């Protein structure tokens, strides 16, 4: 398992009586796209929160390239090259599109960023590229609260892109997108994969999962029920029953 970029072992977290994540193992292998699939409340978002340090696990460990990062603070996890998006986006509403993305390129908290004007030019170039790739260049000066739904989803992606992180954890990035935007989204992910980014995405749309994922980890009620190639998982009648059974409620 030494090839795993990010590995999770025996991770558990309960909220009161709810076992949100139970004894989950998972590996993100460099260049491999992993889809986290499972019904509502399966613990997918909680698993992301545990990996990024937003929540401390009850038990279990997280390693990044062999180094332990369990319970490391979210800002430190970010600086180690793990970027994430949020299911509810959490854009910086009153800031402009450009500022939203700019923040993602400025990890230092101090009064200024290291590296001087040269580093600043490089950061600005990264912002421009992220805006270009997400089709938001024309909206750079608009405030985030004024964007349309699809635009907000792409702004959330632009922030992740601009970090330059090697690992992306995306929480339902394509939910609610129209078919056209969804196609653009798939292209965006393909470009990132080609650029060497390792991606784990939570995704309810099984078409997108088949299209993008190399592996699927199937979660239900906090437990990882299965992991493997998409065809194998998506043909398993028990898993499909759980998935659609609970989704229809």
């Amino acid at each position: 398992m030494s090839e795993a970029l990010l590995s999770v072992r025996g991770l558990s977290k309960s909220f009161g009586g709810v076992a949100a994540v139970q004894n989950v193992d998972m590996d993100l292998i460099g260049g491999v796209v992993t889809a986290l699939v499972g019904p509502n409340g399966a613990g997918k978002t909680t698993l992301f929160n545990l990996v990024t340090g937003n929540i401390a696990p009850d038990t279990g460990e997280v390693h990044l390239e062999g180094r332990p990062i369990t319970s490391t603070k979210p800002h430190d996890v970010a600086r180690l090259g793990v970027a994430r998006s949020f299911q509810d986006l959490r854009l910086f509403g009153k800031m402009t599109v450009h500022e939203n993305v700019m923040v993602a390129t400025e990890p230092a908290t101090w009064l200024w960023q290291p590296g001087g004007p040269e580093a600043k030019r490089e950061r600005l170039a990264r912002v421009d590229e992220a805006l270009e790739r997400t089709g938001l260049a024309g909206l750079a000066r608009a405030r985030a609260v004024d964007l349309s739904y699809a635009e907000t989803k792409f702004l959330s992606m632009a922030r992740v892109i601009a970090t330059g992180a090697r690992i992306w954890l995306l929480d339902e990035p394509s939910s609610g997108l129209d078919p056209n935007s969804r196609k653009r989204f798939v292209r965006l992910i393909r470009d990132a994969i080609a650029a060497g980014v390792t991606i784990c995405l939570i995704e309810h749309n099984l078409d997108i999962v088949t299209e993008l994922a190399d592996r699927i980890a199937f979660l239900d009620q906090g437990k990882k029920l299965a992991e493997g190639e998409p065809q194998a998982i998506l043909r398993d009648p028990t898993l499909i029953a759980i998935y659609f059974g609970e989704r229809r409620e």
Partner: protein
Amino acid sequence: MIAYIVNLATLVAIFGIAAASMNLLIGYAGIFSLAHGAFFGIGAFAAAQLALNLTPDLLLAFLAAASLSIALSLCLALPALRVRGEYFIAASLGLQMFAVTVFHEAPSLTGGHGGLAGIPQATLLGIEVGTPWRFLAVAAVTLVLSLLLIQILMRGSFGRALMAMRDAESAAMAFGKNIPLLKTLAVAAGCGLVGIAGALYAFHISFVIGDSFTLEQSVLLQAMVIIGGAGTLAGPLVGTLLILLLPAALTFMPMIPPTEIGTVQQFLYGAAMTLLMIFRPGGIAGQSVGRR
């Protein structure tokens, strides 16, 4: 008449600095402190004690006032790190009331209920700045420098980090922002700057007393920021002008009997604030509601 206007202009400059520092907290960092009046007072008392006991040098007074305010700002940073929203507001209210009690009950530090009187005229690099015109010039320059510094910081990555924290704290964290550090810095900057405003106030009035730095002062500073436009450079100054000039304008209105001015003032403030928040929630200098 001229003396009156110079005095008013000096107060506008001093409160402009105080409101700008309040804006740093409310407008940019999203920290709704009700203890800003107390830190204004801490700066004023520090400058007064320095002037009475050691030297009336203005730069040293700024240094003393800012240092003490920044050191004590940790008392405000602590609750800001632990709780949010209404819980923090309550904590800052407690701190404000605690401070006023200390202002009143520690005569050796603050002169107690009698305050500290007879603060000598300030000097700047050995030059007397006691005359009203000179003092106005100094206050105005301090205001301009403060606004310039705020503008530079808020246009840069620090300002973006504060606004990101204000708009979505967990997302700011996810992009590398150390929130406890950021909040501590914001609170220190805001309190340090209002301490400087307090120092100017002490020299200007030449008499400091705890009654000037109560919850009412905190609320007034908040009102200046919110009416003018939180999170904008010009907003706090616009709010300060409005709030300080309104009573002045009313005193010149012949049809209001002098005994009623206070009541009319309160009434107009209340009505203006309510109407403004309904029709222009971003404040006078703020952005109007977006296209949504």
